[in-house]
């Protein structure tokens, strides 16, 4: 069997990973259709992609990439250094619509040395540069096919774009002239099923072979009990937190934020909202990362302590605030539980369910909120705590200097230590309520092999997938 149907919850709006934030785009195209200079592996490591190798100058500002030979785009044109320069320049440009433009902010210039060599000069050293180049937003595209990239993506990956039945499915086909090993699959169909019930039904009825990121954790025991299916539980980069508006009274008082942290029973949230799937976190960092520090004890569930802290802060009667909840069920369900837990210590949080567009507008941009629940899925994004204008409005000089030092540091041990300091800083400042690391819950038919268990980035790497004999 060489075809597979993979379901996912959201449909990509279009197929250009370099001009939208939608993760669904990456799920379909990342490493399948488009590739970057470097790429993520399932375990989160960054390995060479279209760049076979690279050299980094002494001061860490010049990267010279050696490109693979014989790489062609699906329209048979050759991928060379010009394409790399084009792609990076396009992402950095004035009128670029790249959702992660910050990834390219440090690039000063891109030079074509020869058809297979590109030299990228940074304005200052950046320890994350290779990691940044592995993002879906940094894939290499070709000027010839850029005009229709949104509906007819042409990349260098192992699969070519086949067909898109809007609202229903996208089909990819094997690219015979792929530079690397030929994948086991001939065709792959991505099906979009947003409704959790429908997801369950589709899986049960065996309409689909794999469900990437199954939306209803409550159904997993049934799949586990069913010999037809396998359940893959892994981790994502999603730190799920109770974001707190640090500038809005009473949350500008650290005692109130600490009270909040002690009022929450993480395990209850994980059990109730995620049916047990998820790892408790005590700071904004992924537990599977070697640099992770377990700080959950710092904000252990202790309603009495919380009440005491509130009284200290002058809120013995509690107070009222809002809790904005975006659509995903971790937020909606988690929100109900947290609201109930907060109510126990006297905080009356009015639940306001919002759509993403509203969330972006009023919470993220307008900063008009008290509390909100959200999973921060970008990998290694602790840097947001150094941005005082970020929506939770944490303005700490310590954090900002720490991050600056970190960015300029390339030594792994030193970086690890700095990351640990940063984690401790935000945990003891109780910037946000830290809940759990979102689990990646995959369901597949028995016999499907090579699925990513973890999700360092939103990707469904078809090249690794195959059917057992």
């Amino acid at each position: 069997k060489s075809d597979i149907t993979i379901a996912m919850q959201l449909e990509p709006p279009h197929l250009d990973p370099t001009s939208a934030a939608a993760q669904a785009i990456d799920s379909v195209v990342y490493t399948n259709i488009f590739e970057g200079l470097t790429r993520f592996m399932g375990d989160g490591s960054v390995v060479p992609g279209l760049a076979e190798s690279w050299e980094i100058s002494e001061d860490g500002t010049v990267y010279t990439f050696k490109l693979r030979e014989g790489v062609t785009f699906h329209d048979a044109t050759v991928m060379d250094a010009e394409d790399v320069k084009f792609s990076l320049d396009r992402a950095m440009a004035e009128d670029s619509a790249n959702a992660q433009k910050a990834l390219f902010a440090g690039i000063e210039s891109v030079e074509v040395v020869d058809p297979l060599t590109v030299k990228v000069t940074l304005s200052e050293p950046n320890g994350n540069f290779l990691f940044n180049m592995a993002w879906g937003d940094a894939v290499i595209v070709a000027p010839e096919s850029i005009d229709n990239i949104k509906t007819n993506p042409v990349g260098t990956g192992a699969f070519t774009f086949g067909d898109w039945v809007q609202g229903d499915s996208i089909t990819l086909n094997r690219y015979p002239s792929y530079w690397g090993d030929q994948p086991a699959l001939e065709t792959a169909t991505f099906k979009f099923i947003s409704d959790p019930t429908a997801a369950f039904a589709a899986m049960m009825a065996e309409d689909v072979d794999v469900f990437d990121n199954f939306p209803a954790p409550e159904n997993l025991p049934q799949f586990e009990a069913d010999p037809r299916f396998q359940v893959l539980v892994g981790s994502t980069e999603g730190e799920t937190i109770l974001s707190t508006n640090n500038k809005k009274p009473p949350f500008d008082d650290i005692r109130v934020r600490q009270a909040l942290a002690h009022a929450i029973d993480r395990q209850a949230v994980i059990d109730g909202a995620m049916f047990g799937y998820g790892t408790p976190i005590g700071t904004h960092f992924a537990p599977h990362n070697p640099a992770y520090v377990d700080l959950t004890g710092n904000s252990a569930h202790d309603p009495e302590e919380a009440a005491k802290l509130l009284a200290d802060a002058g809120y013995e009667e509690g107070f009222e605030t809002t809790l904005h909840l975006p659509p995903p069920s971790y937020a909606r369900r988690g929100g109900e539980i947290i609201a109930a837990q907060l109510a126990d210590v006297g905080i009356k949080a009015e639940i306001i369910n919002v759509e993403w567009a509203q969330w972006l507008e009023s919470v993220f941009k307008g900063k008009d909120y008290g509390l909100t629940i959200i999973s921060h899925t970008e990998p290694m994004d602790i840097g947001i705590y150094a941005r005082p204008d970020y929506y939770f409005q944490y303005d700490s000089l310590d954090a900002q200097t720490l991050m600056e030092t970190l960015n300029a540091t390339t030594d792994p041990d030193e970086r690890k230590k700095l990351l640990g300091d940063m984690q401790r800083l935000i945990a003891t400042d109780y910037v946000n309520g830290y809940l759990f690391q979102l689990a990646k819950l995959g369901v597949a038919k028995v016999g499907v092999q090579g699925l990513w268990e973890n999700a360092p980035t939103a990707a469904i790497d078809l090249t690794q997938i195959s059917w057992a004999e």
Partner: protein
Amino acid sequence: MSRNLILGAVLSSLVLLAALMSFVWTPYDYAALDIPNKLQPPNAQHWFGTDHFGRDMFSMIMVGARTSIAVALVAVGIGMALGVPLGLTAAARKGSWLDEVIMRGNDLVFAFPSLVIAILITAVFGAGAINAIIAIGIFNIPVFARITRGAALSLWEREFILAARVSGKGAARISAEHILPNVANLLIVQGTIQFSLGILAEAGLSYVGLGAQPPTPSWGRMLADAQTMVSFAPHLALIPGLAIIVTVLGLNLLGDGLRDWLDPRIRVARA
């Protein structure tokens, strides 16, 4: 009194009773979570079992009845309060531009896809019971306007209206004194039907997450929450589903029964 009327009245008042009762007593706090005891099937402690957060379903159904009734009732109220005067006016000014404007306006509202507009309204103003009421209420206006106008038009042809006009009464006065009381029956019957539709609409909106917001329970949201759990905790979907069915059924039967009961032909025969 027909069987329909009695059955309908019994079912409806059962639901109403549960709703009223919930203000003073529920077996448990409807909002109290008890996650270790989640998803219990109906048993002696929890008559309707517990939901995915361990909340008592019986208490939630009682309080949910309150939500459903409140939303549907106010929505019908809006529809009547605006629709009936519009219908009376249109009938009183039959054939004038005012009549034309009112009726075309009605057609236009009818032409809008109601659910889409309801979703839009909640997108604009945020999800919540009040906005659900408005969204449902708007589409009740033309229903009542049309019914009122239709009935009023035939009343305006009646000789007793002519007699009132001979007595020098103006259109507004006649509408209030003679037309309104005579269309009241019809409005009551239609009211119960719209009420039951309102309950379904509220459930539908809550089902897509646009009705009353948690922790206020609502039958539609209970159903939505239950969706993924039907296969292993069917009571989660069955109970609110049956609650909706019983209520709507009760109201429909009540409406049907009232229609027969209030039918003038039968009334005269009884007198």
